[in-house]
């Protein structure tokens, strides 16, 4: 017992010496206010490191292992095999293409519709405030509730869409919507657009409000038509808003999962099997955490480079 106690006391005194050295270095490098600021920031930083930074690096580490939860006794280190297997997989490339398709149609529609609504709300008219408030409703609805609502609307047996179209005489019998492979992604994108347009409209409206009136007045004096004023003043001035909408909506669309989960579970066949769905299936259904982590990293890297290129192009002269 005694040697252990001696060892413990020795270790504690060593630790005390190290702590004293660190404290003295810190007090020389930072003044009292700086030290206080760092001290106050430390708890938040510690939490961030624990819940954000550590998982990022840990998942990268996991992506180099053939880790399957249902096979806990055999977890070989496989270097880049998980990545290489994915790159050789037809389903992976199919899911990339479907993700790109979904993102393209969603972001384009969100931006165009958001711009139109922002332009409308930028005008002064009776009921503008009410419309602005109503506009926020889809945005305020949680994604899961939104998905369940659209599932009901699209249902081919009792859905509201079929009912409405039949009553208006556009169709003569109930149609198959989500079960029709050609319509699945556009219909999911439609539900996504409905939810995301309000946010885009508000972001663009805020940017519109910041354009000085003088510019429009001067252009009017110079005889510029409404269209020319829109092309030469409004659109260039909206660049920061566009950049924000592009980056934000692209990132959300690429990673979007809820609608795919609730509306189709990746089906019919592989029609709506997008990257986010592939990550879910690999990680939580197949319990293949190694491949799941590799997939998540691929998605993170792609999202990062997309955001970066948007900033470099659209936001160049911000």
């Amino acid at each position, binding site marked *: 017992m005694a040697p252990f106690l001696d060892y413990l006391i020795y270790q504690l005194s060593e630790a005390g010496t190290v702590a004293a050295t660190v404290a003295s270095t810190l007090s020389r490098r930072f003044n009292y206010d700086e030290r206080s600021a760092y001290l106050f920031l430390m708890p938040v930083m510690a939490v961030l490191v624990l819940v954000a930074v550590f998982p990022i690096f840990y998942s990268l580490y996991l992506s180099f292992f053939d880790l399957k*939860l249902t096979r806990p*006794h055999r977890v070989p280190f496989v270097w880049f095999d998980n990545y290489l297997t994915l790159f050789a997989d037809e389903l992976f490339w199919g899911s990339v293409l479907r993700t790109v398709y979904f993102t393209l149609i969603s972001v384009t529609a969100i931006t165009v519709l958001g711009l139109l609504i922002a332009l409308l709300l930028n005008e002064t008219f009776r009921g503008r405030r009410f419309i602005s408030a109503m506009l926020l409703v889809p945005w305020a609805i949680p994604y899961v509730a939104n998905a369940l609502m659209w599932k009901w609307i699209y249902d081919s047996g009792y859905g509201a869409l079929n009912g409405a179209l039949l009553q208006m005489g556009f169709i003569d019998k109930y149609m198959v919507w989500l*079960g029709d492979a050609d319509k699945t992604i556009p219909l999911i994108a439609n539900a996504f657009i409905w939810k995301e347009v309000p946010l885009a409209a508000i972001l663009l409206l805020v940017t519109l409000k910041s354009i000085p009136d003088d510019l429009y007045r001067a252009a009017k004096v110079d005889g510029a038509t409404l269209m020319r004023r829109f092309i030469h003043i409004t659109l260039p001035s909206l660049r920061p808003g566009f950049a924000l909408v592009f980056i934000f909506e692209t990132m959300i669309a690429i990673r979007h999962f809820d609608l795919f989960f609730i509306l189709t579970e990746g*089906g019919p*066949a592989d029609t709506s099997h997008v990257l986010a769905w592939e990550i879910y299936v690999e990680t939580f259904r197949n319990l293949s955490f190694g491949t799941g982590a590799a997939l998540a990293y691929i998605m993170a890297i792609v999202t990062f480079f997309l955001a970066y290129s948007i900033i470099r192009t659209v936001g160049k002269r911000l």
Partner: protein
Amino acid sequence: MTKDAITKFGRRKFLKYSGAAGVAGSLSGGLAGQVMAAETIHFSAWSAAVDLVKSHVNAFQKSKGLNVNYSNFPWAQYRETMVTRLVGGAPLDMMWVSDAWLPEWAEAGWIKPVDGFKDLMKYNAEAEKFCTDSMTYNGRQYGLTYYTDFMGFMYDADKLKKAGISSPPKTWDDVTQQCLKIKEAGISEYPLMLALAKESWLIEFMAAMVYSQGGRFTDDKGMGAMDSASEGALKALQWVVDAVHKHKIVSPACVETGELTGLKAFASGNHAFALEPKYRMRHLNDPKQSKIAGNVKQILMPKGDGGSHATVGWMRFHGMSAAAAADKRRAANTAKLIEWFGGKADGEYKFQKYLFTDIGAGFGVKPLFNDLDVQKAYNSYTDVNVIKKQQALARKKDMVTPWFGEWQEVNGSAWQSAILQKASPQEALKKVTNTWNKLKKQA
């Protein structure tokens, strides 16, 4: 204590004794905790029949003098939750297990066979064969039944009568002919309801059709046999594709129709025939929940050319964790709880009977069919004799293996591709078979 006494006792002595008392206290507390923990059976289940389970647990505690720590989790997240708990070493002795997870949980070493307990094995004599088969992996039995059911073929007698059909179908050809007759009479656009959306029910629907057509998914060596024209899944898939595109008796929306949506559609009177889990009969003949209540009848599964009236059965059972099995005393206590739930409690199959009479969940022990309360309950919405006959023809899912989940992702997509005519049934099943054999090789 006076100041004098404190002085006499001394600060050092006080610290010494209080320290010793603390150590003794924590040691005894720890030991007591261990003893308590050994006597407490940790039981996890999904959130079904919670009140009934609690009351049965209470009865067990009173009868056996053992504590049970019962926890439950939603079915939708149950597998993931349990895998996390098993990997993390959470205290767990008895748990509900689905037949679909048995191979992977057994391979991972999370659950252990219970066939060493004679008190449990004696119930096999009274259990349906497919139930015992569904709890068996690599020749070892891993539990006792909790609930079982099978896929049933149902029809709306009123619609058949309106179409001038005197007796329900016996074969899949009969189904086609009767559906066409009903369709021509304008009674239903899509007379047969099939729910083939991508969800956990999908394999049950597929397997019921494959087995009744005389097919199977794997051969005797466990290799994929899905693409075999004579004994695989081809006949069943071809029948579905023809039903959707050639005869137009099944809606093309079947690929987006989940089991629950399909049930609602059938209960609303949209279809004349439906493939549904047997326990749905209670719902379908309940006037509060179904427009066709009173008209829904169940018959034996139609058979294909060279097929039989076989259907698929599924099984949920009480399993024992590896941690419990590793400790003799704990294992013995857990076996008692397994018997209390999955076997007889006080000489009766109480839990399975209550589960049936309370929520209509099926049982896997044959003697309960002779119980008058059970017969009365069944006969109030269906014919107990048909149920008994069909249950005896139910088969376990032969494709349930450690790689079943991964394979089913591909299998589900392949069937849907064929139904959407993006691939021929042969091509779709070839892909499914190749995937099966590849995964088997990797395992």
